[in-house]
């Protein structure tokens, strides 16, 4: 006869899936697109990525210490690393170092730890970081460069790159360029219609990524592949990516069919900007998206639609970050009004 340890409640088994494993899988899925971006934009992009991710990790440790939860386990759940990574994927690759650091402050300190850390934040941390930067520092946040591959002639060397990122040396004029969406927007203000604007940029199969943009923008196809990998591993469900892309493509297709000189085609919208990154990696952020399937469909569609509206009509060339934040704000409401019907009930449970 033996007396047993303090009773634990059932179940006495676990699937083995852990937060750190989920985060690691997402990072694995992000790797190909990131590496592609690195080769495309060379040393400056690598340095900026390192600065951004590093700042996020340092701030995460500091915040956890302040909150008295400084155990190694909470740091290595990987959420800070992933948030920093996603933020870095949306920055102009030649942006100065302080962009990365300030973005990390907004992401980790304001958007995440002010709310109590992992799981408590209503807004997507990486997108808070990006939007805060975009509004505060419009110029460096919209200075894009042409692809300047590692080791190619004319690309900045490691030393040049250190200067660009850390001592504010201006990006060589020869390298600056515009993204597709930014170009169309500026041309529209000069009275050039969308069709000609696209042609003047010489968009040559932009899906392949050989054009100006952020790391996440140029590697759209690889981001898509990474997203499909996440779907296959059941880290994310199909609802948000599908509905987001539909919400973006449907109005774009209709607009383009009605007035091609005013509206970009659906294909351009889907491959340009952060559409793919947003659909598979940002809007699908578990913490800030709805918990129900129906809610996820509404959320994704709203993100896509608002992205199209902001891209097309508002002052900013890229609206995905705003769209995601706007829909984040609606998540509690969406969750509340899409509660599934409980077994044995005629109607969903009454609001609590």
């Amino acid at each position: 006869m033996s007396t047993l340890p303090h009773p634990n409640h059932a179940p006495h088994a676990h699937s083995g899936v852990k937060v750190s494993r989920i985060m690691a899988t997402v990072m694995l899925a992000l790797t190909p697109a990131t590496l592609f971006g690195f080769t495309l934009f060379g040393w400056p992009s690598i340095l900026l990525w390192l600065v951004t991710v590093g700042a996020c990790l340092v701030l995460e440790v500091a915040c956890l210490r302040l909150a008295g939860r400084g155990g190694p386990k909470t740091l290595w759940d990987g959420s800070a690393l992933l948030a920093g990574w996603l933020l870095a994927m949306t920055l102009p690759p030649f942006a100065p170092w302080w962009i990365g650091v300030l973005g990390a402050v907004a992401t980790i300190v304001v958007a995440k730890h002010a709310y109590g850390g992992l799981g408590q934040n209503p807004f997507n941390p990486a997108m808070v970081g990006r939007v805060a930067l975009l509004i505060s520092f419009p110029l460096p946040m919209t200075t894009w460069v042409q692809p300047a591959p590692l080791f190619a002639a004319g690309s900045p060397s490691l030393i040049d790159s250190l200067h660009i990122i850390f001592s504010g040396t201006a990006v060589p004029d020869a390298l600056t360029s515009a993204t597709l969406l930014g170009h169309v927007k500026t041309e529209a203000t000069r009275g050039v219609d969308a069709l000609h604007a696209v042609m003047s940029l010489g968009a040559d199969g932009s899906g392949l990524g050989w054009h100006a943009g952020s790391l996440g923008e140029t590697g759209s196809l690889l981001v898509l592949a990474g997203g499909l990998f996440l779907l296959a591993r059941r880290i994310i469900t199909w609802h948000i990516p599908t509905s987001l892309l539909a919400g973006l493509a449907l109005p774009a297709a209709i607009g383009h069919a009605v007035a091609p000189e005013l509206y970009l085609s659906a294909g351009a919208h889907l491959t340009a900007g952060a559409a793919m990154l947003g659909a598979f990696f940002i809007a699908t952020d578990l913490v800030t998206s709805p918990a129900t399937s129906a809610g996820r469909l509404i959320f994704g569609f709203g993100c896509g639609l608002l992205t199209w509206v902001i891209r097309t009509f508002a002052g900013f060339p890229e609206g995905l970050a705003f769209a995601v934040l706007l829909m984040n704000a609606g998540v509690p409401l969406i969750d509340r009004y899409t509660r599934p019907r409980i077994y044995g009930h005629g109607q969903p449970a009454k609001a609590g």
Partner: protein
Amino acid sequence: MTEYLLLLMSTAVVNNVILVKFLGLCPFLGVSKKIDAAIGMGLATTFVLTLASVATWMLDHWLLVPLDLGYLRIVGFIVVIAAAVQFVEMAIKKSSPQLYQVLGIYLPLITTNCAVLGVALLNVQNGADFLHATLYGFGSATGFTLVLILFAGIRERLALAAVPKAFAGAPISLITAGLLSLAFMGFSGLNLT
């Protein structure tokens, strides 16, 4: 027609009364703890704001302007708005005790809701005609309601979150309001023409 729709969109979203004009912040922070209360408050405010826009427009155009009493505008508007709110409160108390219980002490708050007076004064400033003034009031109120309900949803969730002590309560609500405002800046420069 399109013009009026655009006016509605613009007042509700682009120039949101709370997040862009920073009017009506007291009910925004005061009545946003529960979604149900926020919905009630939003509806009541919508009603009062529309009514007040109409009433103040009439007061301004039919009394103050003809008699050249522009300097009495603020006093006159406050009187009319206060009376309208009192009236609405009594009517709700009688017709819907449940709604009255939900809104409770918040109904009188509408009287001091600066959004109501602010919108009425903005109407004068913009030189709006009757229909524009009405739509401006209604659109602003819709934007107020939208943001109030969104904010209430987030706050209901925050009530269950492990917010650090230093940020719990008002601080985190203000940070959230700031982030919400940041998100709404995406609409800035929205030009539907």
